[in-house]
């Protein structure tokens, strides 16, 4: 494999005019970039839909199940207690699988962007790398799809005692991702032996969008850490203590037959769960958006848009990345209004990612052409 001189497109070659040259065939790197951003955008959209149509309703059903358990305690009905907790388990599974599907889709997108970064250091044939990229994308889609279906498919038609077909699908997709990563690691090992780049590295441009994404991303991660430290230092232990205190009061009220007090404690429990959930969600979302901004800074050379539009998408992304976690936190004080604004923040990030995706689709493939040329020794 020939050594590659340092790359390639200067800003002129990335100007919109050169798109008239037509599209190069997609390289593995561009599949990872396009697929990764698409997975992240789809995961965020799913998260937004989940937040609007499912999350609050699910929390209400959890409260109803706990209320039913307290009524069963008051009535001295052990069987009804067990049934209430079985139902609560099902509600939690419903919620948990949707959160997991959302998280896994986004994380697969992050991993795809990371793999895009390391492609120059993977010493494998171009076609092999493309096939691996396609397999990775298939795994990245099937894994969250399988997780999502777990609650609905259950154990129907499954030959296993505790694992349903949806779990099999999710596990198989996860195994596919692991397989791709192992082959990538092998390719990296081969690179370490030869120390020759298989394709050009990403251009080291010093543009405003890139610097804004890097700085903004790091600040977002930093804010997430500061908030996490604040939460751990001031609220975490109190929330943990209050959980058992409220449950004890709930049990005491139910045992005494005081259903009104029991209902009040169920509401307290719901409020506490809400307080914990919004703090954890704000902490994790702001850090994830920070990481996303940093990863997107790497792929800006592939976003084939004018500088003005690149800046717009970057501002929209960073704006949404701040609005969503801040208003998730404010849900406790402002209620559904804040929830709605948080969803708009999520939508801003999705729109920004879609804008960048358009830029990647418009990209004429200068880097890909160089990669192919390198492999052909031209």
């Amino acid at each position: 494999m020939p050594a590659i001189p340092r790359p390639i497109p200067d800003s002129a070659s990335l100007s919109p005019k050169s798109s008239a040259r037509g599209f190069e065939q997609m390289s593995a790197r561009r599949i990872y970039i396009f697929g990764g951003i698409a997975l992240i955008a789809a995961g965020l959209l799913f998260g937004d839909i989940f937040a609007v149509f499912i999350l609050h309703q699910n929390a209400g059903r959890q409260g109803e199940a706990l209320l039913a358990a307290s009524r069963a305690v008051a009535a001295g009905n052990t069987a009804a207690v067990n049934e209430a907790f079985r139902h609560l388990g099902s509600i939690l599974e419903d919620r948990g699988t949707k959160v997991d599907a959302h998280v896994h889709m986004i994380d697969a997108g992050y991993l795809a962007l990371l793999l895009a970064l390391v492609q120059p250091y993977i010493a494998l044939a171009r076609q092999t790398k493309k096939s691996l990229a396609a397999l990775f994308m298939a795994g990245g889609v099937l894994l969250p799809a399988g997780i999502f279906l777990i609650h609905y498919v259950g154990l129907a038609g499954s030959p296993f005692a505790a694992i349903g077909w949806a779990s099999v699908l999710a596990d198989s997709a996860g195994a596919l991702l692991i397989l791709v990563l192992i082959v990538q690691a092998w390719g990296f090992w081969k690179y370490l032996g030869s120390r020759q780049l298989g394709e050009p590295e990403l251009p080291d441009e010093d543009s405003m969008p890139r610097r804004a994404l890097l700085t903004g991303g790091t600040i977002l991660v930093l804010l997430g850490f500061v908030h996490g430290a604040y939460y751990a230092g001031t609220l975490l232990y109190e929330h943990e203590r209050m959980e058992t205190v409220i449950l004890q009061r709930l049990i005491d009220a139910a045992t005494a037959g005081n259903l009104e007090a029991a209902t009040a404690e169920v509401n307290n429990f719901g409020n506490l769960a809400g307080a914990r959930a919004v703090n954890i969600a704000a902490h994790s979302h702001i850090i994830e958006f920070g990481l996303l901004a940093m990863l997107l800074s790497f792929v800006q050379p592939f976003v084939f848009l004018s500088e003005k539009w690149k800046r717009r998408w970057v501002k929209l992304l960073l704006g949404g990345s701040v609005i969503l976690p801040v208003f998730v936190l404010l849900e406790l004080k402002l209620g559904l209004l804040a929830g709605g604004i948080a969803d708009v923040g999520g939508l801003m990030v999705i729109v920004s990612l879609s804008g960048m995706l358009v830029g990647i689709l418009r990209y004429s493939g200068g880097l890909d052409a160089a990669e192919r040329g390198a492999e052909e020794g031209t």
Partner: protein
Amino acid sequence: MMTGSRKLLIFGGMALAAFGMLYGLQYALFVEHQTLDHMGGSLTQSFSAAANRNLAQSQAALEQYGETKYDYVRQVDAHSHWIGLAMLMIVLGVIFEQVNFSEGIRQLVALSLLAGSALFPLAVILQTYHHGAIVLKALAVVGSALVIAALAATAWGFAKPRTTA
């Protein structure tokens, strides 16, 4: 060019990620399911005992639930923070030459990030063996402070206009 600070972040991050994943794998295989069963079972038992008007057993089961959840939350948090911080280190390692400080300062920042990323989740996990130990809480604070300081320096370094190649 692979500078010392980049090596520290990339290879330190890879080692930390591998460790975090292995820790998570052993926890998932040998501990997690039992813990979740224990947690759900304790809560159900607490309510069932209350339905049978056995309040002492109900309270004991509820305490079991609280303690099990305390451990579970920290085990999962430590595992995910190790991997998350490792991923952040790897990403930063790729572009750390764009942090516009001298290589000496960059190495100090990278070392601070690595030390904090390893120490903070470790202190959290150790709390499951000694509930509420002040020393361990202090270690967790020191670890997270190292990470926060390193990230603040990194953000500053990214924001500075490039002065060196």
